[in-house]
Every structure is written in structure tokens, then in C-alpha cells.
């Protein structure tokens, strides 16, 4: 989950957006070779990742359009995980939490399937809303009904935001729920005081006897990655403009640490973010000489390995490039299948 400080957009936007690099050569400070690369990136990066498969383990599709789904499918994203998060403003009752969780396993799952993308989710009480204790108590009551559902691959995203006592309380309670349900934990690390918040998230998980291999520490950066990997946790990186990782920096991290236990996500949501962050970063890695196998691990396989520990991911459901659901296609009868959305030609003037 991303909390975009809007004021920074105003400062950064005019300075950093170079739409036509070639027209402003004086602003470009890289080598000729890098400039060449940069131009190609903008032109047709999909050429670099033609037969790649991607798994985005953190993306908030309820905030995105069908155009995004279509573009993601076209870029090779086969499956995604949508963590339960904050909706941009606080909820006022348990019923809206219930409806939100239901939508993650219901309508959004269906919407995704129409584009051939397999949709999983993690369910949890996010750290911001953990601070509303009377409401948090009620949410904790209904969580078990959702955690055992088909396709729920973890408890998430949970952790610290302001690092208050209430956040700590509900983080711990949810770690216990995860332990009981034998589910992985997807941990949101705070924006402010990040390094200490990340250390605390890991220490508390260990204190509750959770194996680090069952914990995905999210939103890492150059300052947190080493400790996370050294302690045996999964290290997830969010490629998100302005506030999180940029993908050029991401390339350097994979060069330095290798692909083991590292995964990339977009965390795309209602802020200025990019649902194609994973394929774009893969293309950049490919251009910058990172091996195809390493790219496969950080943009696909590691996320699957981490979250499949839930027992809720069957790779054959999406690996072939088609979402397969026995209940929708068996006996060769298509009547009862969920159905894929008909393709619409985006460049056509006509709407039929």
C-alpha cells in the first residue's frame, strides 16, 4: 500500500518528466549507450520480454480499470495477488470491511478472470485502520471466515505504519491467526522510520515463532534489503514512482544480491503508479544483461514459491497462459464458463 505524499508530485513532476529525451539532449546526463537504451525502453520494451511470464504478488486491482487488466494480460502477467489494504480514507464500520473482503474473493476475482489473469488475495487488517481499536476488534472477529477461503494465499498486508501500540497489538494478533491457518504473512513496512520499522516487523514475527520463510517483507529498499535476506525472510520490492523503488535501482539490487528470495511487485493502486511495473522492470533487466533465469525468479517464480506455501496456488491454473477452471470448462461445454471479455480494438474510432 502506498501513501503518496501529493506535495512531492508537484515538486517533482515538472523536473523529472522527460517525455521526449531525444529532443532535450542537454538534460540527459548518461552515456550515449544509455541514451540509446532509454530511447528503446520508451519505444517498445515488450519486445525484450516476449515469451516471459509474470506474477505480480502485490497489486490493488479494485483501484484499477479494465484497460489496466488488458494491458497486464498483453504484457504477460498471468497471475496476481491483491492484498487487502486501506482505501484512501478510513472505513467507519465492520460491514464495509466485510464487503471489501468479499469483493476481493468475489467480484474482483471474476473481473480478473475475464482477462485471463488468475487472481489471488491476502486478507488482513491494515496497519492504519488498526489504530481504530473498537472497529479493529470487530474486524478481527470476521477475519477467520475469510482466511480459510479458496485462493486466499496469506495474511496481508499487515504491519506497522506509525508504529503505535494499537498497530503492534493487531500485527501480533494477526501473526497468530496466520500461524494457526498455516498461511504466509505479507508485511507492509512503514514509509516513515522505515529501517527501524522493518527490523521491528521481523523481530516480532520471530518472537511469535513464525518461520522467516513464511514471511514476505514488502517495500524494501537499498537500506533494508541486506538485513531482510540475512535473516532468511523473503524480500519484496515495490516499483512505484516517486515514493518507492525505481526500476533502474532495482536492477542494481539484483546485480548486487542475486535473485534468491527477492521478488518484485507494482503495488499499483489509486495513486500514480504503474500496473506494468513488473514487466517493465523485467525488460530493463534483460537490456542490462541480467540472466533470463534471474529475471524469471524475481518476476515470477519466487513469488509463487513464497505464497504457494499457503497450499492455495496451483500453478497449472495459469502457467499455460489460460486460466483453467474445471467448473467452467469441463465436458467440453462452455455454457457455464465465466467467460473472457471480448477484445476491443483500442485504436478504433468506432464503439460497437
Amino acid at each position, binding site marked *: 500500500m502506498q501513501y503518496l505524499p501529493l506535495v512531492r508530485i508537484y515538486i517533482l513532476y515538472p523536473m523529472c518528466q522527460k517525455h521526449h529525451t531525444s529532443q532535450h539532449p542537454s538534460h540527459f546526463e548518461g552515456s550515449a549507450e544509455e541514451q540509446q537504451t532509454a530511447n528503446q525502453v520508451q519505444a517498445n520494451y515488450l519486445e525484450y520480454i516476449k515469451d516471459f511470464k509474470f506474477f505480480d504478488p502485490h497489486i490493488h486491482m479494485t483501484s484499477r480499470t479494465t484497460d489496466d487488466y488488458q494491458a497486464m494480460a498483453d504484457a504477460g502477467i498471468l497471475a496476481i495477488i491483491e492484498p487487502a489494504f486501506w482505501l484512501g480514507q478510513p472505513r467507519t464500520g465492520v460491514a464495509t470491511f*466485510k464487503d471489501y*473482503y*468479499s469483493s476481493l*474473493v*468475489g*467480484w474482483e*476475482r*471474476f473481473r480478473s478472470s475475464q482477462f485471463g489473469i488468475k487472481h489471488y488475495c491476502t486478507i488482513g487488517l491494515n496497519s492504519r485502520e488498526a489504530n481504530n481499536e473498537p472497529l479493529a476488534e470487530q474486524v478481527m472477529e*470476521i477475519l*477467520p*471466515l*475469510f482466511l*480459510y*477461503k*479458496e*485462493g486466499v494465499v496469506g495474511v496481508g498486508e499487515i504491519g506497522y505504519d506509525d508504529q503505535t501500540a494499537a498497530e503492534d497489538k493487531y500485527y501480533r494478533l494477526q501473526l497468530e491467526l496466520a500461524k494457526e491457518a498455516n498461511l504466509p504473512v505479507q508485511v507492509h513496512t512503514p514509509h516513515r522510520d522505515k529501517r527501524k520499522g522493518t527490523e521491528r516487523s521481523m523481530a516480532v514475527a520471530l518472537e511469535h515463532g513464525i518461520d522467516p520463510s513464511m514471511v514476505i517483507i514488502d517495500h524494501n529498499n537499498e537500506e533494508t534489503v541486506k538485513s531482510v535476506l540475512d535473516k532468511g525472510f523473503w524480500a519484496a520490492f515495490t516499483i512505484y514512482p516517486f515514493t518507492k523503488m525505481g526500476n533502474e535501482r532495482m536492477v542494481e539490487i539484483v546485480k548486487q544480491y542475486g535473485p534468491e528470495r527477492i521478488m518484485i511487485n507494482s503495488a499499483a493502486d489509486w495513486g500514480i503508479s504503474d500496473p506494468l511495473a513488473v514487466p517493465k522492470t523485467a525488460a530493463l533487466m534483460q537490456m542490462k544483461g541480467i540472466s533470463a533465469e534471474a529475471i524469471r525468479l524475481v518476476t515470477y517464480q519466487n513469488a509463487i514459491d513464497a505464497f504457494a506455501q499457503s*497450499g492455495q496456488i496451483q500453478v497449472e491454473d495459469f502457467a499455460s497462459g489460460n486460466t483453467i*477452471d*474445471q*467448473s*467452467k470448462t*469441463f*465436458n467440453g*461445454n*462452455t*455454457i*457455464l*464458463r*465465466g*467467460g*473472457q471479455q*471480448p477484445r476491443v480494438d483500442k485504436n478504433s474510432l468506432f464503439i460497437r
Partner: protein
Amino acid sequence: MTATQAYLANLLEKTATAQEWEWIQSKVQGDLKARQIAFVALPRFIRKVPVHTGGTMATPIQGWELDQWTLDRLARVYLLSHIPNHDETVYINAIEMLFDTAEINELVALYSALPLLAYPEKWLFRATEAVRSNMGVVFDAIAFGNPYPLHYFSELAWNQLVLKCIFNDKPIHLITGLTQRANAKLANTLSDFAHERWAAGRKVPAQVWRLVQNFMNDTLLDDMRRLLQSDDTYNQTAAALVCFHSTYAGAKELIESYPSLRNSVQKGQLQWKQLEVHQLCYV
């Protein structure tokens, strides 16, 4: 055990492994919370293989079609049939909670189970919610092979079910009780619907005209004329069948002007079955 439970148990035993069957049997008892969690967690223990319905005993509920079901769906319905119903409030609340928190496959199982739930009239609102759903498989669970709408839907609700089915290019012949509940309002609305589609340059699935046969009037007669004059053989077949079987004087007259079609209907060479197109939906 009721006849329906025995029927479901028989089907389950045929498809489930010994281990799966044992799990199911262990979950039809216990406290309410445990049963609810079992309903939710079921796919962790039960596969989604197709159910073998061939050669089994006859379905105890007429119009309830289980041959497209998967094992997880069948097992969930079986669990639901065992939720104790002696206390109406407790029972209703328990089922409502499952509906309120359900994911897609759970919703499919819940709606499939409506014909066997206790206090059937209490589920009417829920059932119409499934008709309002835009999740294809959820709509299908109430619309096809499910006798609940036939017995409990008002005419308004019934007509919405049929119209939404047609609007979404789904096969209406799979609706249980389709002919039985045909009515004049629906027939007239169908004519309006067809006019809208034709104005937009779109088509109407030919088999829907079977719903107007007993409710002909001059407007519908004009529609039949238009179908007969079209170059679509499905449309011509539909209009010929309607006119031939209608008792409306104008319809009888109209079909006489198409002797070859009339003869084909008379000889049984043309039938609604031929218009039941299976691959139409979601294209």
C-alpha cells in the same frame, strides 16, 4: 437422512476418494461454527473433479440438474443440507452469514442449494440478488438447472431472470420451468427488446421466440413476418414454429404463405431443439 441427502451421499461416494468421503462425513456434525468453517475451507480437502451422475438414482427434486457440477460444489451442498434447522432464526442467520462472506464458488454452491434449504420463501430476496449478479457463474447457478425460481419467483422476478439471460446471450432452454412460466408480459417485452436490438443492428437469439407462442397479438405477428422475411434460417424456423403452433388466427394465415416451412414443421423436421445453440454465451 432425507431422500435428497441420500441421493447426494450416493453421488458423493461415487466420485470422492475414501479420504474425501471420510472428511465430508466428519464435517456434517459438530457445532455451527465448525460447519461454517468446513464449508469455507472445503476446497483444501475436496477436489474439483466433475461429478459422475450417470446411472444413479433419479433426482428427488424435479428440475434440479447436477450433471455439470464439480465435487467441491456437491460436497458443499451436502454440508448445507445438514445444517440443523429446528431453530429458524439461528438457521437463517447461519446461512445468511455464509452468503454475506462468500467467494465465487461458495456463492455457486449456496445458490445451487436453494431447492433444499429449509424455510424456502426466506431465500427469495437472495435468489433475486443472484439474478442481479454480474458474476457469470453466480447467475448461472440460479438460472440453470435450478427449480427454485420456478416455484418461488413472482412474475416480475421470473421475467427479469429470463430477460437477463437473453440480454447476456445465455441459453434460456436450460432454465427449469421455462415453458411452464411463459406469460403475456414477457412475450410483449421480448418484442420491445427485439426492436431495440434490430434498431442497433444486432441480433436476437432465434430460440427466444418460443416464449411468445401462446401470447400472439398483432405486434408479435409483425415480428414473425419480419423473421420469415429475413435471410436467417434460424429466424425463419423460429417464426414457422411459433405460427404453426399458435392458435392466433393471423398466425395460421401467415404460415400458409410459406408452405415449405409449414410442411417441415408439420413433419417434425423443424424443432426448437435445433435452435438451442450451446456455444452462444460470452462470445
